[in-house]
């Protein structure tokens, strides 16, 4: 399974080496057999997958184009709703929740022939950097089973790395696609804010939430993004800018491209990670890129601004989990107010409570201007840093995480240390620019490292071009 790509599956189907039904059945069996090793999937969707596979076979038999993702096994993060298929958001509160509708990204990938084989584990409501905040147990990193896969889209990253899916959907609010991609050694993409509809993505921090693809190759990530991107009338913040064929950018030619290295991103970098990043930069230079140092001076304020904005939005978004409409309800409930409180106390894990509390605090009377408005102003400064940088360079290259995958349990007792580890990914989300992680080798301990590539709004093509050229040169 690990060797398949979107292109090779398509070829196999069109040459009648296997039917989509046969391939899907094998993929499901393989994923269910392998899953106990990592706990990447929470739910398998065999009925829906087989129905989608039949539809692909019918199209092929009728001589129609079966779609850009024909027969491709896709894993979907369990914060993205799927009609009739349990969607837990990694939370006890939604343990039995069966959504009555599909997310737009889900509809689009199935229309393109993609086969959803299951829903993947994640930190509760996408809050976390290690996947240890799931109510359904942590995910183990397929590259080192005693380590975390990163978070919050840890299950999607692990499924693609383990070979139990070919591509996957994740969501990114502060790094939740790129960081697990880097920890598991796969490609992870956070597109421009608004590039992919958020309709059906369970809201965490609405001004920062993105759906993004995971894949084992840049080409597959580009194909999946093109399928799910584009204007959707169900999300007023979705962009109407035309969606190019990102694969056209994958020509390996990066000569003369100007790349910026933000000096603030190379401070405090673990040396095993730094060595891989510097080696990747040397490769890009050899390919003809012009590399120059740049400065993003407000980087050091990003974590503080992010944890105000994200938690403020989360405290409002998570108010809906109240034991009335779709969550479980605490059994001991007396009055309505007690029922709300007890349902939420029993249902939310510690990290969600921490963020709801922080968000409620920064929005409460007397603190709104000092925290929330202040953070939004700092967000402007961070976005301006990027806008100025992109007047000098075509793309920015940087690390994704200051260190590789850590051991399960190693950081759970220090929430601030966990928050600080998001330093290199949070700024891209605050500015809303496209950014991705592409594998750039292993540390001496054999742990994957990710190279981050960032470009200006709606310039995913340049980002993919750099990632693809690097990947070709380094293999």
């Amino acid at each position, binding site marked *: 399974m690990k060797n398949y790509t979107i292109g090779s599956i398509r070829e196999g189907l069109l040459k009648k080496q296997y039917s989509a039904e046969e391939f899907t059945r094998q993929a499901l069996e393989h994923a269910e057999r392998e899953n106990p090793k990592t706990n990447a999937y929470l739910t398998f969707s065999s009925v829906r997958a087989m129905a989608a596979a039949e539809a692909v076979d019918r199209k092929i038999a009728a001589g129609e184009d079966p779609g850009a993702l024909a027969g491709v096994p896709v894993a979907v993060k369990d914060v993205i709703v799927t009609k009739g298929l349990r969607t837990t958001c990694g939370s006890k509160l939604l343990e039995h929740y069966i959504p009555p509708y599909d997310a737009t990204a889900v509809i689009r990938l199935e229309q393109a022939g993609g086969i959803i084989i299951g829903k993947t584990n994640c930190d509760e409501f996408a809050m976390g950097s290690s996947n240890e905040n799931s109510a359904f147990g942590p995910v183990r990193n397929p590259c080192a089973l005693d380590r975390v896969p990163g978070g919050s889209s840890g299950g999607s990253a692990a499924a693609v790395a383990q070979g139990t899916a070919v591509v996957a959907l994740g969501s990114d609010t502060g790094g939740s696609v790129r960081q697990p991609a880097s920890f598991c050694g796969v490609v992870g993409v956070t597109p421009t804010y608004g590039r992919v509809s958020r309709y059906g993505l369970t809201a965490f921090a609405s001004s920062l939430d993105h759906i993004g693809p995971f894949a084992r190759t840049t080409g597959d990530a580009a194909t999946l993004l093109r399928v799910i991107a584009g204007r959707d009338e169900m999300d007023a913040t979705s962009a109407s800018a035309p969606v190019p064929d990102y694969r056209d950018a994958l020509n390996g030619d990066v000569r003369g491209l100007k790349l910026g290295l933000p000096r603030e991103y190379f401070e405090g970098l673990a040396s095993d990670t730094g060595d891989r990043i510097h080696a990747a930069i040397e490769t890009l230079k050899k390919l003809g890129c012009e590399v120059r140092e740049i400065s993003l001076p407000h980087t050091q304020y990003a974590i503080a601004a992010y944890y*105000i904005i994200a938690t403020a939005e989360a405290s409002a978004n998570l108010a809906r989990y109240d034991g009335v409409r779709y969550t479980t309800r605490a059994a001991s409930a007396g009055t309505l107010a007690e029922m709300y409180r007890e349902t939420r106390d029993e249902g939310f894990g510690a990290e969600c409570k921490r963020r709801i509390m922080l968000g409620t605090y920064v929005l409460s009377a007397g603190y709104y201007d000092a925290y929330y408005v202040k953070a939004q102003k700092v967000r402007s400064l961070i976005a301006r840093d990027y806008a100025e940088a992109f007047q000098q360079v075509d793309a920015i290259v940087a690390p994704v995480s200051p260190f590789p995958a850590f051991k399960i349990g190693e950081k759970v007792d220090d929430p601030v240390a966990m928050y600080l580890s998001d330093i290199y990914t949070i700024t891209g989300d605050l500015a809303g620019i496209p950014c991705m992680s592409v594998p750039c080798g292993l540390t001496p301990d054999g742990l994957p490292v990710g190279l981050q590539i960032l470009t200006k709004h709606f310039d995913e093509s340049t980002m993919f071009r750099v990632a693809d050229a690097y990947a070709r040169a380094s293999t």
Partner: protein
Amino acid sequence: MKITDEEVRRVAELAALALRDDEVERMAKDLDSILSHIDKLNELDTTGIEPMAQVLFASDETATLREDRERPSLSNAEALANAPVSGNGYFKVPRVIER
């Protein structure tokens, strides 16, 4: 301490969370360390800077609304299907008004 146990209890009330006593203590400690880090923002002079509430908020590319027209919505049964307690086509909750 930047936040007292009393304040934690007040914020928990606002957030509709019933924190146990041991949770209050732990929460105060965690929020204190996060708020201490957040204090870093005060180093920055942000006079005259516009707050950024949304990415590309003023952009033509995204600031679009859909046509307002009648469309099918969820049926009553679909809307109630995930409710922990329902009956007679309604969500049921504990009594709100005491007689």
